[in-house]
């Protein structure tokens, strides 16, 4: 059994490496298919159309070289821990990217915690109290969470704060201390987590409802198992498989997909920086940042696969 699990893990690992290689090629090529490069943007911003000067800058940045050479240079740099220099700030890309990761990680972590803390229990309650008033209320709340655009909710929260408290919970300076950090990030995290918790809640509910109809649940009840034991020991564990998958996908999404929340709450995180870098065609930043997000997403998927193996014995025994 352990040998089979080992093979399963090795296979998943190689698939992960292959996926990352594919992403690196895709990102690199797609970025160069987008019209314009940094030289175009830099000269456009000044209303200049001097072709010779643009070519000079392209040469200086190595953009005149064949795409394969550029790719090889990037990958070889990456292998040596050299991420290159940002075209815009002219600082090492690592120096630009690294400080933004903890900011987004804090926001994403809090949002995910919010989503799990509220989403899973409310999903269970909604399932076990199916078709009661409480179930209807929870379903309406979860639907509104899914349908409210993040920028609208974010702005509404900001306007509410300004109108009722005379302050605005946006990021202007790095917060000092745990509580200040927690307070600053908790409001945007709640805005993001509201949507995620709605998703988790709906999925937990439907998954629980499906599991509760299974024969083994009926058997457990027939054997006289108390409700709490049936719901949380027998049903929830099995119902969690799809929920864990969604939580994993949400976690990967939150690392790079919080552009709206970061913009509205003015958080200098990864997503906002990525969009800005794309706007400037700052290739070293975009390539490395996308690769970072890809590594996070692929790693989370790998962990979920491992968790599957733990949660579902069928996966461990599959050939």
């Amino acid at each position, binding site marked *: 059994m352990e040998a089979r699990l080992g093979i399963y893990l090795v296979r998943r690992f190689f698939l992960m490496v292959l996926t990352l290689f594919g992403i690196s090629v895709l990102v690199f090529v797609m970025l160069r298919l987008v019209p314009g490069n940094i030289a175009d943007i830099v000269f*456009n911003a000044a*209303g200049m159309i001097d072709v010779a000067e643009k070519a000079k800058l392209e040469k200086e940045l190595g953009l005149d070289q064949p795409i394969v050479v550029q790719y090889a240079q990037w990958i070889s740099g990456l292998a040596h821990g050299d991420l290159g220099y940002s075209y815009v700030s002219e600082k090492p890309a690592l120096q630009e990217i690294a400080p933004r990761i903890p900011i987004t990680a804090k926001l994403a972590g809090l949002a995910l915690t919010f989503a799990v803390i509220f989403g899973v229990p409310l999903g269970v309650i909604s399932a076990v109290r199916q078709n009661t008033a409480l179930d209807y209320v929870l379903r309406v709340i979860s639907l509104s969470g899914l349908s409210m655009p993040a920028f609208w909710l974010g702005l509404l929260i900001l306007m509410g704060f*300004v109108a009722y408290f005379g302050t*605005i919970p946006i990021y202007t300076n790095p917060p000092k201390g745990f509580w200040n950090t927690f307070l600053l990030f908790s409001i945007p995290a709640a805005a993001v987590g509201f949507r995620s918790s709605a998703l988790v809640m709906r999925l937990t509910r439907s998954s629980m409802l499906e599991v509760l109809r299974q024969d083994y649940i009926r058997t457990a009840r027939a054997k006289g198992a108390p409700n709490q034991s049936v719901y949380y020991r027998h049903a929830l564990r099995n119902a969690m498989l799809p929920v864990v998958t969604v939580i994993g996908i949400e976690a990967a999404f939150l690392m790079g997909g919080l552009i709206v929340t970061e913009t509205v709450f003015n958080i200098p995180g990864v997503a906002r920086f990525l969009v800005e870098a794309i706007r400037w065609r700052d290739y070293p930043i975009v390539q490395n940042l996308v690769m970072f997000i890809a590594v996070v997403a692929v790693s989370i998927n790998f962990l979920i696969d491992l968790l599957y193996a733990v949660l579902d014995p069928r996966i461990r025994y599959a050939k």
Partner: protein
Amino acid sequence: MIAKLIANVALAVAVSTIAQADEPKHGGILHIYHRETPPSLSIHEEATFSVNVPAMGLFNNLVIYDQHKPQNSMSDIVPELATSWAWDSANTVLTFKLREGVTWHDGKPFTAKDVKCTFDLLQDKAQDKFRKNPRRDLFNNVSEVTTNGDFEVALHLKRPQPSLLAMIASGYTPMYPCHVTPAQMRTHPIGTGPYKFVEFKQNESIKLARNENYWKKGLPYLDGIEYTIISNRATAVLAFVAGKVDMTFPTEMTSALMQDIKQQDPTAICEIKPINVNTNLIVNRENPPFDNIELRKAMALALDRKAFIDIIFQGQADAGGTLLPPPEGVWGMPPEILKTVPGYGDVNKDREQARAIMVKLGYGPNNPLKIKVSTRNLATYRDPAVVLIDQLKTIYIDAELDPVESSQWFAKIARNDYSVGLNLTGNGIDDPDQAFYENYACGSERNYTHYCNKELEALFDKQSVETDVEKRKKMVWDIDKKLQEDVARPILMHARSGTCWKPYVKNMTIMNNSAYNGYRYDDLWLDN
């Protein structure tokens, strides 16, 4: 008697309080939001006031427009790093006496060599080059820069050009140190200005701190300025209302947003002013059928500028020619001349005339001319382009919007790959030399329509050497009128834009005729 005494004491206390309130106070950090991450902090290499606003406080010019006179004009240029200036009798040598005892932020002394280095960089004569040099052409007339000791420098001109002083007074012409490379100036600028560079974090903030060794003794009053980058305008406005920032980004507010701010914070001080940015029509005169001047004239006659101003700026913009119109603009055509220019009079009559031209050229309601109106895919470009398309319909031109990805806009124009376009042109200084040579001279890089009229170019030179301001104005008006008649680049409107600040921010002056020159902020102070 006692009552009189009490009244006198109360009056004395009140007067003393008012006097104290008006007395500048040292200290405090001024918080301003910045609308975007600027490309760098090297003023010479950039062409957006997103750079000038945070970076002007780092530097000094030789001379500068008086920072508390809203209208930039030749008579309001004051000394800065130069203590005085003088023209020779032929008006071809401009000599500056330099201030002694000024040091760069890194402690090195400022001398005439630095002035020469700055002009060498601007003219691409230095060994180190700028990555880009958008205002190189402004100094084409400077043949040589010579120094006489450490504190005198002379600019030798090919021909007289009184407005050279205006260009040197612009926020776009700070002095750069010889000993710092252009690359370092982009990331960690060193100046002589009232504030020192502290840090610049993309998407986050730009921080400046008081220069303790500033040559203006006792200044700046502020301990520093922090520009928080808030790219979402709704968040930025709420941050201002909530008091998180003391001031909005200069000349960034629309009239509607300013009303909203005043409603939420009645104490806020808001001003709306022209920014010397015009919206204009560019027509590719080299490709048929637009090589026909009659067709271009018909297009110019179809324009209803009031409609543009009302729709796009809720009435807060101005109709004018190439130069910003008076009273804020110094050189623009006065209304009595402007209304004699074709296309600036009765819209219905003009359109009747335009339709007649179009019919003569073979177009009509059943046979409209089908074109594309190309423009940058940004709201400030796209919105007026949509109004333009609607107006062109009235003269049998069936136009379709062609939004061009922003990075490709000028490349597309350079390739002549457009027929009709809508563009925005900003002027760093309200001066005819800059506007004419940059946008209308034969072969100029920014003469996007390739308009070339040698006779008119001779008139550019003639007005440029004229030292009598009133005489020069009349020459400028004639040129501007001729440019509009030639449909060189029809001007649709000159934008106005607003700024708001909290009442405790003192000594703030917003410029009337340029958005590029008024951000030294060395005598701003906070009364809180």
